[in-house]
């Protein structure tokens, strides 16, 4: 409680400023499109970072939750005429329940085994989305009605940009709150030593399950918004590769750094857009970039930069 300028408050203000000022530099619909996608990815990554970066539990299947949220919104609004907000919340509730049921057995696994378990989970979700053609339209995907909020319909890039930007800011605020609390310390303790955490009175299973559910629900919410924004959804959003992309965003930005997760999401959403100019070489270059960044920036961008700054100051 020393002064008004704490790192968390400073970070929040910086993020808010970037979100507010960025439209000055966005020149066309495509630019806005990329910015909105960055925001949607960042929301997922902030949640995933709570799970991976803070609690130390890997998940290679979170794109599955993203896609489930997206499909819940698509199906409930498109086929059953639910109001979009109800569909979004319904999807989040459904994903929350599903992740709660999965969490207990899957989070008993550690390290490599947890990676494989979550990978299997994600792939099963993606296969179901591909195969339940009557419900999901199969590999061809399905259209999604526009988003309507109590009669208000966000249309145009700037409106969507403001909506996603505001939600991202709120998500970051909530995440920072959580980390700086007894619950957040308990999560980090689980990462540090599960045995010691238990001895300190921390029900490690409960906290792992909670944070798994929170990260899944955030992915689902982001997925729902994505579905409405894009107006179309296909199982590709839930593929194994998307899960890896999300995890890479978290790791690249810097584990256990909420702002790192946002930076990671921004970079890894931008890179493919930039590489698209190279046509046939896109995949090859993307793979090379992925490898290079992980080999040379093992700690992630934000922590590596912070360390560099500290050393400079000395």
């Amino acid at each position, binding site marked *: 409680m020393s002064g008004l300028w704490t790192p968390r408050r400073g970070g929040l203000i910086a993020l808010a400023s970037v979100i507010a000022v960025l439209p000055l530099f966005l020149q066309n619909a495509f630019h806005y499109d990329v910015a909105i996608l960055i925001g949607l990815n960042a929301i997922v990554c902030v949640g995933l970072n709570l799970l991976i970066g803070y609690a130390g539990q890997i998940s290679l299947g979170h794109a599955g939750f993203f896609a489930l949220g997206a499909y819940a919104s698509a199906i409930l609004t498109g086929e059953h005429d639910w109001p979009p907000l109800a569909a979004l919340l319904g999807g989040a509730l459904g994903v929350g329940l599903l992740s709660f049921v999965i969490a207990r057995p899957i989070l008993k696994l550690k390290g490599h085994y947890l990676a494989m378990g979550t990978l299997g989970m994600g792939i099963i979700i993606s296969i179901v989305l591909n195969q339940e053609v009557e419900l999901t339209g199969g590999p061809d995907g399905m259209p999604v009605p526009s988003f309507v909020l109590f009669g208000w319909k966000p249309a145009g890039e700037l409106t969507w940009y403001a909506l996603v930007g505001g939600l991202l800011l709120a998500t970051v605020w909530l995440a920072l709150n959580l980390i700086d609390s007894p619950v957040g310390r308990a999560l980090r303790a689980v990462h540090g030593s599960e045995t010691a955490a238990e001895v*300190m009175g921390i029900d490690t299973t409960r906290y792992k399950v909670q944070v798994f559910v929170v990260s899944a629900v955030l992915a689902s919410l982001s997925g729902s918004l994505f579905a409405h924004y894009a107006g179309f959804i296909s199982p590709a959003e839930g593929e194994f590769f998307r899960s890896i992309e999300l995890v890479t965003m978290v790791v690249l930005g810097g584990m256990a750094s909420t702002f790192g997760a946002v930076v990671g999401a921004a970079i890894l959403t931008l890179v493919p857009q930039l590489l698209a100019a190279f046509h046939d070489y896109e995949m090859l270059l993307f793979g090379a970039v992925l490898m290079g960044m992980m080999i040379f920036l093992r700690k992630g961008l934000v922590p590596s930069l912070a360390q560099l700054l500290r050393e400079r100051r000395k």
Partner: protein
Amino acid sequence: MSLLRVENLSKSFGGVTAVADLSFTIEPGAIYSIIGPNGAGKTTVINLISGIFRPSSGRIFFEDQDVTGLPPYELAGRGLSRIFQNLQVFANMTALENVMVGYHLHCDRRFLPALLRLPHIVRGDAACRDFAAELMASVGLGDYVHAEASMLPYGALKRLEIARALATRPKMLLLDEPAAGLNPAETDAIDGLIKGIAESGVTVLLVEHDMRLVMGISDRILVLDHGRWLASGTAQEVRRNPEVVAAYLGGDARER
């Protein structure tokens, strides 16, 4: 009322018996030590009492309530804490945060208030921070309050574990080799620390190799050999017990 009562406790790992048919009782307020040669099963006993291992058979009572098989976090809630022989410090946090984790049970641990950072969470955290800093100062870690835990020297890490365990406000503290790896001066300091903990009303169960430390501060000593009860009594009684001398202490201890 006894604080801790262990009845016919046994533990085997894949056919190898580590602890066999062990019974003992600890009264509140004492410093109780378990000694024995390497492989006597001392650490296994600590792991059984603190809930890290489940016993193969036998029962454990804490404050006359059956706590056999309860997970460590529930035992912590009942007032049982410990330190680890092979340090289990949270290396991803600062030293202060380590101790704050110890205070976990006395904080508001609900998810929603934390997410919204309600005013009482902010106040609670500030109080927790002060409490932890004070506790660190009281175990002699005042200089390390803001250091990253991973940067602390070995001796300080031992004290950090003690501070963290004390932050749970235990009724009983299990100390698994608190002096292992320390030099004589540091060991003497730990000796004083343990006495202070006992005087503050926390019952101590000590497992230790340093005989001088054990003999100096223990009210009662239990001697284990190959996982079995060999002898128990005061330092004087144990020292004079010929079986103990034969099995373990040898001439070395008598000289001391």
